[in-house]
């Protein structure tokens, strides 16, 4: 999400602390995990807005191909290409995509976490996927 272990530690710390402080305000009309996601996402978005280098930075901990058998090399390289492509998406598109593809949240859960309409979530994920497919179709081994 933030592409940086230290930033991730800070965000996790702040999110857990904010949750601990806000526990009394937790309304049980939402799942606890959704509520916690919302706090963490708000913290990450605040961090990303402060940075002057949007869209996202390329993760520092990308998988490397050193020591990887040749049969796995192509997979490692393609995963690396996806990591870079995702990091370069604008945060507005990257975050809902991560919540969908990595965290496996439903569209309505993502809408609740981000505080936007389900239509907006679908639109952002749709555009993120198009961006990714366009990038990957130009970076694959068959690319011209």
């Amino acid at each position: 999400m933030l592409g940086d272990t230290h930033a991730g530690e800070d965000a996790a710390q702040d999110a857990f602390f904010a949750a601990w402080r806000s526990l009394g305000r937790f309304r049980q009309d939402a799942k606890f995990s959704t509520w916690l996601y919302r706090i963490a996402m708000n913290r990450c978005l605040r961090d990303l807005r402060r940075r002057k280098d949007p869209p996202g930075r390329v993760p520092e901990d990308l998988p490397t191909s050193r020591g990887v058998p040749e049969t796995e090399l192509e997979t490692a390289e393609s995963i690396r290409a996806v990591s870079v492509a995702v990091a370069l998406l604008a945060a507005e598109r990257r975050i809902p995509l991560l919540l969908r593809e990595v965290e496996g949240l439903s569209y309505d859960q993502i809408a609740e976490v981000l505080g936007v309409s389900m239509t907006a979530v679908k639109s952002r994920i749709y555009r993120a996927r198009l961006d990714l497919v366009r990038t990957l179709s130009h970076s694959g081994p068959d690319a011209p």
Partner: protein
Amino acid sequence: MMVGPWQRLPCGRATDGLVTYAAEGIGAPAGSHEAGCEYCQTAIDEFGRLWLPVRRWAQREVDLPDDFVATVIARVRRIVQSPRHVVSVSSRGATTVTSWVLGLIAASAARQVPGVAAITPSRAGRQPAARFGAEGAHVHEVDDASISVGLTLVARTDQSLPDLADAVRRKVMSSIADQAGVNVGSVDIVVDDLDVPDST
């Protein structure tokens, strides 16, 4: 057939709408044009092939540092157990302020000084055990009567950094004294980046 997004297929359908079928791993609805059209099916298959690395990427194990969770929990615990400073006592009760709050006041005060672009978590020489603050402000208790504050900041260009640091120091000391009644003995400042305006 090579397909990509933003193409129109020979059947007249745009390829954009087919990406979702591939990404979600669902087929086109039975009876729809896409379900019976060879062009659309070929495009969905092609997008599915392109999406396979994304699926592998999403399912990969993320290599968190071994101590990530322990570090975060320890830091949260320390914040929760952050030292408290008694700022006033009367027959009607005592008022205490945590170091966490003092850190928030320090960061907020520093941010108001012209020339400060941002307050950032320190990246070098991090000392989680001593970190009782927020937003890049670290508060250390010196004794019962005073504290020291550490700040890491990003400065705007075209200014004297020592002058900026002095201005931040004065602002942090006066803000904490005014708002919390706590004496700040020293403010250590690290300028770890410059906010260089875009030349475009």
